[in-house]
């Protein structure tokens, strides 16, 4: 299904994500990588020192959509596949892969690239490549 190209909203939204990462680094010296923040508070090795800050950051993240609804009067627009099996597989791969690869779109894609990290640049190129291939197969080979 087509979605509207939104260069201005996307640029400003991206700017807010960047600002969040700068605030987190300035205040707490932490990288705003969501997979890292989440996985650090999961077993088996819970980072007790970082636990409160991690949970507070996630509460902020979870409050964004309800606040958006209150301020704009409309829920954020989204189209999520209702194929439960597909999304369980996708979730497992995203969770497993982001922890194994030490980062996701935010940690490697935004923060890592900004720091000029060669590891993050390699990781971003790798996950972009497999994601492009996956969507091609999903939409034009399997679904075509």
């Amino acid at each position: 299904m087509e979605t509207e190209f939104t260069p201005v909203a996307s640029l400003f939204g991206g700017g807010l994500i960047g600002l969040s990462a700068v605030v987190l680094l300035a205040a707490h010296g932490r990288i705003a990588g969501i997979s890292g923040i989440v996985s650090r508070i999961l077993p088996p090795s819970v980072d007790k020192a970082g636990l409160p800050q991690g949970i507070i950051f996630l509460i902020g993240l979870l409050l964004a959509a309800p606040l958006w609804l209150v301020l704009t009067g409309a829920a954020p627009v989204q189209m999520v596949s209702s194929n439960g099996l597909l999304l369980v597989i996708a979730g497992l791969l995203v969770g497993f892969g982001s922890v194994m690869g030490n980062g996701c779109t935010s940690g490697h894609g935004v923060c890592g690239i900004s720091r000029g990290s060669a590891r993050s640049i390699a990781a971003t190129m790798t996950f972009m490549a497999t994601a492009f291939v996956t969507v091609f197969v999903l939409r034009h080979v399997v679904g075509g």
Partner: protein
Amino acid sequence: MHVFSTLFAGLLFGTGLILSGMANPAKVQNFLDLFGTWDPSLAFVMGGAIMVTMPGFWLVQKRITPLFHDVFHLPTRTDFDARLVVGAATFGIGWGLGGFCPGPALTSLPLAASGTLFFVPAMLVGMVIAKYTAAPLPKSLAV
């Protein structure tokens, strides 16, 4: 201030994801669909974010310590290993399949779309499995 800054950062991050359209998996998948209904918006999201983080990080790191802590917790590894590449490749496949990565999926959780309610618990399980299968990970996990 300490707690507020963290809460504010989380709220900013989620709001940015919503405003940018990245909380909509269809928009992410359309970015990845070069030969179909291509929507280049995601490139503008990354561009907008990096335009702020690049100068922002540089400025922040002129300080010796962060505002509320003694040290910066920055990743220090520079080596390439199989875990980085295999992990990233696996992550990319899941990202393409669902159109969700961790931030947007968690931001979408209160909207309670059925697909999100399948994705998020599976993602958390995937993370725990990866932690169990890994050798003790260095602090730089927090990339």
